[in-house]
Every structure is written in structure tokens, then in C-alpha cells.
């Protein structure tokens, strides 16, 4: 049922055919006058955006969203997003077009579909934003030109945490020929660990639905290490105070992209809103003050490569 798909040209076609599919709702002035800002954040995605035991929305992105809304003098309305197969899908479902099943927002937009004003935790990648895909007859068309990626606010990295009672240090990945390692399925760590060294680690890789489940398996001794994003691992380490669970400094030379920047996305037509938000976040990032938000969740803030000069 679909190799992970990136080429979503048909939706561009739909857009062209049905002007109702376009998202020109909430121009800047109207947005400011409305009294609220709708921010897209991923559902159940600690430490970035999730609900705590009391049912309150918390997380790094939730706090950043709250800060933006406060600075704009607007109420924050969170738009919880379920991730689809890849980023292009999420941008379509939650930012520029709306979800195919949503027909209940006629009062907002001609298409009847709800979209966010701004989406957080969007990788900042010019190559992605300006990627072209072949659509036939010699034409290469822009594939993600309905949105703009802006304002990198964090650098994300793949990391490895391990149980030092069972494995003193994971200096190279070769030790995972002998130790089971947990990963979230369908992620780069899963791909990488099952394919490096001619697949020799394959039998030691344990797949889980989430990093939290993989981490729990490490706590229970089922796996020796977990590989996931730095933010996720630091959050989980902070939740499980233990002397034996440690963040490793293993490097992964076989991995294509080890670091990437995280920023925001707005619709192409809403650049003005994007600039406004840049005006709010950029001073925090340039001064490093944004790190205090990350610290609340036990996460180290790393300056985006964009600013690291």
C-alpha cells in the first residue's frame, strides 16, 4: 500500500482544478483581529508536544507556540497533528490544503477544511522547499512551493543511549553484533542498523512503535541501547533517573543525514505572518535564551546550523 511517497503532484492538480482547495483564509490583518493564533504541533510527541498526566498541553513546541501567541497578543489555539507518511503529507493535511476527511469548517474557508496558521517542528531545508519533481513532457515542477520554511530554532541529531551496566560504552556500532538495540520502526536508525555491516546487526535490532517503548525495553533489560533523536532520548533519560542509563557519544558515519535544523512553516501567501514570528523567535535563538524552554524538559538546546557561523 504505497512505498513511502513523496511525489504528491496530483494534489497540486486538484488545487489547480478546484480553486476551493486553496488556502487564502485568514490574511494577516484578519488573523490579528481574530484574537487567536492556530499553531500545528504533533500529537503525543514528547518532549515536543503532548499532554501530561493532567491532560494539559505541554512540551517544547507548545511552550514556543505559547510564547509566540503571547508576544502577538493572541490566544493560542493548538491544532494537534497526526503524522502521515512524510513531511509533504503533513504540510498538505495541516497547512495548505486541509485533511481529506474534514468537511466541517465551512465558516472558515471555502474548502471547508481546517488548517493551521503556522506549523512547528518543520525541518528547515531549502533543498526540500525548492525540490522539483518530474511531471512529464519534459517538465520539472516545484513540489513544495505552496509553503515556506522559515525560522530554524533548533538543531536535531541522532543519538544513542545505552545501559552502562551491560555495555560500558558504545564507541562503535560494531558492539551491536552482540547487544540488542531498540529503535522506532520506519526511521533512519531502523534502516541504518538493519543494513550496515552487510546486515550483521540485523538480528539484534528490536523494532518498537515509539522511542518511549524502546526506552522502556532498555529499562527492563530487553535491549542494551536505544537509538533515537537527541531530544527524545534526553527527555526519556530525565524521566528515568538512573545512574546506569547514559547518553552515548557514538558517531554514525554510515548515516546520510546526522543533523538537521528544525523551524516553522507558513503558507506561501502568509509570509508576513512568518516574518512576524521570526521577529519574535530570532532574538531568543540568537541570544540562546530559547535554551531555557528546552531545559524545562531536560533537553539540551543546540544552535541551528543556520546560525552557527
Amino acid at each position, binding site marked *: 500500500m504505497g512505498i513511502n511517497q513523496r*511525489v504528491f503532484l496530483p494534489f497540486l492538480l486538484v488545487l489547480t482544478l478546484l480553486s476551493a482547495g486553496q488556502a487564502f483564509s485568514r490574511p494577516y490583518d484578519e488573523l490579528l483581529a481574530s484574537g487567536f493564533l492556530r499553531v500545528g504541533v504533533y500529537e503525543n510527541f514528547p518532549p515536543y508536544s503532548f499532554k501530561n498526566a493532567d491532560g494539559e498541553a505541554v512540551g517544547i513546541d507548545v511552550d514556543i507556540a505559547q510564547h509566540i501567541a503571547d508576544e502577538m497578543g493572541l490566544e493560542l489555539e493548538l491544532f*494537534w497533528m497526526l503524522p502521515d*507518511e512524510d513531511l509533504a503529507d503533513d504540510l498538505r493535511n495541516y497547512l495548505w490544503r486541509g485533511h481529506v476527511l474534514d468537511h466541517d469548517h465551512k465558516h472558515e474557508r471555502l474548502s471547508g477544511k481546517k488548517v493551521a496558521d503556522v506549523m512547528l517542528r518543520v525541518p528547515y531545508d531549502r533543498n526540500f522547499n525548492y525540490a522539483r519533481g518530474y511531471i512529464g513532457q519534459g517538465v520539472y515542477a516545484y513540489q513544495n512551493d505552496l509553503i515556506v520554511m522559515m525560522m530554524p530554532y533548533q538543531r536535531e541529531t541522532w543519538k544513542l543511549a545505552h545501559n552502562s551496566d551491560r555495555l560500558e560504552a558504545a564507541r562503535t556500532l560494531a558492539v551491536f553484533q552482540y547487544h540488542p538495540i531498540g529503535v522506532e520502526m520506519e526511521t*533512519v536508525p531502523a*534502516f541504518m542498523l538493519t543494513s550496515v555491516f552487510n546486515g550483521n546487526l540485523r538480528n539484534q535490532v528490536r523494532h518498537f512503535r515509539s522511542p518511549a517503548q524502546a526506552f522502556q525495553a532498555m529499562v527492563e533489560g530487553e535491549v542494551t541501547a536505544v537509538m533515537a533523536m537527541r531530544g527524545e532520548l534526553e527527555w526519556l533519560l530525565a524521566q528515568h533517573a538512573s545512574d546506569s542509563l547514559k547518553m552515548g557519544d557514538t558517531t554514525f558515519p554510515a548515516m546520510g543525514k546526522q543533523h538537521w535544523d528544525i523551524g516553522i512553516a507558513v503558507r506561501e501567501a502568509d509570509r508576513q505572518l512568518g516574518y512576524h514570528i521570526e521577529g519574535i523567535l530570532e532574538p531568543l535563538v540568537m541570544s540562546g535564551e530559547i535554551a531555557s524552554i528546552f531545559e524545562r524538559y531536560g533537553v539540551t538546546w543546540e544552535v541551528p546550523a543556520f546560525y552557527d557561523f
Partner: protein
Amino acid sequence: MKPSHGKYFAISALVAAMSLSWQAHAVTNDDLLQDHLTTDRIVTDGMGLQKQRYSPLTKLNTDNVKDLRPVWAFSFGGEKQRGQEAQPIIVDGVMYVSASYSRVFAVDARTGEELWEYNARLPDGIMPCCDVINRGVGVYDNLVIFGTLDARLVALDKDTGRVVWRKTVGDYQEGYSITAAPLIVNDKIITGVAGGEFGVVGKVEAYDAKTGNLLWTRPTVEGHMGYIWKDGQQVENGITGGEAGKTWPGDLWKTGGAATWLGGSYDPDTNLLFFGTGNPAPWNSHLRPGDNLYSSSRLALNPDTGEIVWSFQTTPNDGWDYDGVNEVISFDYEENGKTVKAVATADRNGFFYVLERESGDFIRGFPFVDKITWASGLDENGRPIFNDDNRPGNPAKTEGTQGQTVTTAPSFLGGKNWMPMAYSQETGLFYVPSNEWEMDIWNEDVTYRKGAAYLGAGFTIRPIHEDYIGVLRAIDPKTGEEVWRYNNYAPLWGGVMTTKSNLVFTGNPEGYLMAFDAKTGEMLYRFNTGSGIVGTPVTWEMDDEQYVSVVSGWGGAVPLWGGEVAQRVSNFNQGGSVFTFKLPKAYE
């Protein structure tokens, strides 16, 4: 649910006032078993549990089909259009038909007037992979049963549309969904599940048709335990494939895919259910060396226990997204003076297979599309002989932002996709809706998933020919010979139906319902329904007249996948309606 009470009560009063022949009688197991022989009703998806889609009716024939006329059309209404892939069901003068977004309609089959409709309330944020379609309902006793996009089975009262019971087959939050019509055998509803790339494991399950209680469940991936319910107790019923790890490395069997998204068929002779399974997960075949059973396979199951009686894998270690879900049709043929009890199936991978029905043994297989590049043929056991150059590369070995491009035919949408073929007992031929297209696949690292870098596969689908993609083929299952073909500009995505009077019906995305001479392939009739046809036609008899019905409404997976193929279909308009035809009275 949106019951139109006022309308319903008015009509039920009318029904009561009318003749006894219109009085509803409950659909029995016997009715379901005899569906392929009866002409005044259609109570199964497939016009018979073996799914031959062959009608014994002959009133409509190659001479008079040119005079076929539409008698009514019915709109599904609302703004919810997109793909309409259902086959209508007809019981006692009432048509039950499902529509996009998990809707069901009951319509007066004589006039096209709505009796009731049911709109499933779908939760926010479900992620159907390939359009919001539904492929039809099942009927049993006084119930109309169908599966929803959020992976529930819903049983409705056939007279009122009110919910009698509702059961969850899979958790939609984990990626499960149902779009196929349920199969009903021996008082049981047998269903599979759809599910994307999110670590779903396929399964076939049986539910008590009256109560909706689960009776057995059979996972389709090696290593998972099956269960059966005895006196309300869940009892272990054997691990699928014996044990884990025989054909999968590491723990990948736990999230192995093999979704049973297209439902199944049943053969009363052998008392076997036939279900197909989807591709294995993850999509990168280099990560899972081995056959990855039972992905991309056909399974024969015991309907009483869910035990797998035999299996046949069409694409071992699939790396092209060649789901093995396509329908398995039971049929008998004569060879060397003996009757061979066989099944046939036309796979996404471009090969047509004829198997021994009781054992699953390979009898023969042959290409049914013009171009197959991923395999050079089949060996004596029906296993593909791979062309290693045509396996998409390992994304972990991608250098730069884009890996090497591999061009493969058929494309991942398949030589034939979900759209059911038909078998004529009269000509002994299969009528196969197929497509000639190929794909480029490459790996790329400039992609992301849920805030994380991701190794994606980019791909595009291309027509192989300038002037057509779709090919309706008449294929001889004994020889592999293509007896005739009809080339269609757009890809074919609708099912086929045939009659004893040598007619073959199907629809195309251009909107035409078409009738062909089953022997020659000559097109004898066509009518444009105003939107693309991706549903399956049926025919039945009512008041001594022969009717034909088909749903119209362009959509499904084709327009979702971009590339040059999307350009070819970009001008087709959406819709959502049922068209019903018959001959003018003058023929009586």
C-alpha cells in the same frame, strides 16, 4: 447517521401497500451459496461467493445490447465525492450500495428513490492510504454489513438503516482501515484489514453475523499467534507459519505488513476461503532478506477455524510494492477428459496464475501484460526468476541526495490492481482489466517524517504507450493466450462482469459504461455516466426485465500518484452516482 425518517416511513407504508412479491425476506446462507445461479437478486460481492462475476441471464444479448437505455440515476449527494468503487447489491427490489467516506444507501431498484442512508461518523485524523473509498456491502438475514475507514464493521437494519451492531476490527490510530466488502459464509462475516506502512500486521477474522462477536482471528505474518473463541473463551490456535524468524530477519516479523485489504472469496466445493496479502514492511527489501511469509501471497483458509490450508507466494521478498491481494476466482475446466478444479488470479506483478484449488499447487503461470522487467519468468513451481538489476537500490547505500534510478514494469499500481476480473463459463475465458505502465524508483535523503530526517523513495509512474494505458483482455487460462484486447487511453480501474449471452461489461475513467462481445472484443455499446467509472457493474432480473447497474465517480488511487499518469487523467471530473439500465419495453 442521517436517517431520513419522514421519507422512510412514507415509503414503508407504500411498501406495505404493495404486492407480496416485494415483501422483504431475510437473506439466508443458501441464498448466498446460490447467488451465482439466481437471477432476481445479487446478494454477494462477486455475483457469487466464487466471485466469477458471471450471470446466467440471456435476455440482454449481443444483438440487442445496443438499445440499452438508462432508466434512472441516483446521486450520492453532498460534497463527499472522490472514488466510487462499490458493486451494488440487490435484494427484493432494493439496491444497497456504498459510497465514498463510508456511506451506505438503500435505493428503490425500480425508481432510484432513496429509502435510507447511513453516514459513518469518522474520527478526525484517520489516514486512509489510497482515497476514501468503499467497495461494497454484504447482506445477511435482515442486515446490511460493511466496513468503515476507521476499521469497524457496522451492521445496519436493511429496512431502516439503523445500526444493529458495530465492532472494531483494528485500531485506526495504528493505521488500520477497511474498504473491502465483507464476505459472508456459513453465518460468519469474514473480513480482512487495510493498513499502510505503519507496522500493521495483516489478519483475516471471522465474526458471528448475527451478533458481531469475534469467532477467530488469523494473522497473515509468520510468527503471530492465531486465536479461536470457544464458549466465549479465547483459545490459542497455532502460530501462523509455525514459528517466527523462518523467513524474516530479526524482529521484523512483528511489524511485517501483509495487509488483507481487498477481502476474499469462498469455494463451497473445497470449503476454503481465499484471501490475498499485501506487501511486506518496511518497503526496503534489502533490510529483510528472506521470503517474508506470508506477504504478497494467496492464502486458503478453513472458514470454521481460520487455519491456513495452503499458501502461494507470488512475489517473495517484494521490493516493488506488488501487493498479492488480487481476487482468487474458483473455476473448473476440462483437460485430457478430466475436470480440473482450479483457481485463477492476476497479480499486480504482471503474472497470471492458475493453481490447483484444493492444494494450491502451481499448474501454470504466464504474463498477462506486455512488459515485465522485474522477473524474466516463473520457474516450475511458479516462483519468479528475479532480474537483480531491477530491484530498487538499498537506501542505506544512497550516495548524495538521490540514489540510482531503477525503471521497472509493471508500476507499483500493478499489471492489474484491485479491480475484479470476470470468468465466463460460456467462453472459458477470463476478462482482465489491466494496465500497461512502468515506474522509476530512486532513493532520496532529502525527506522527513515527524520532525526527523528520513530515507524516502521517490518515484514516478509512466505510461508505456502514447495512446493507451488500460487494456481489457480476454485471456485463456489453459494456454495463456490473449484472445482479444481493447486498449483504453486512461488506466482501467473498474471491475468487469460477463453474461451467458456473451456480453462483457466494464467502465472506464472517461466515464463510459461499455459492453463488449465476449468472443470477439467488439464494443457493442457505450454510455457516458458523466464521471469516471471505477466501480463494478452488475446485472439482474426484475419484473421479467434484465437490468444493469454501475456506480460512477472518478477517484481511487490513480489520481493520487502523480507523474505522467496523473496528467493523463487530470481532466476527469469527480462524481458520485448509480446508473441503472434496461432495454425499452418494446423488447418484451
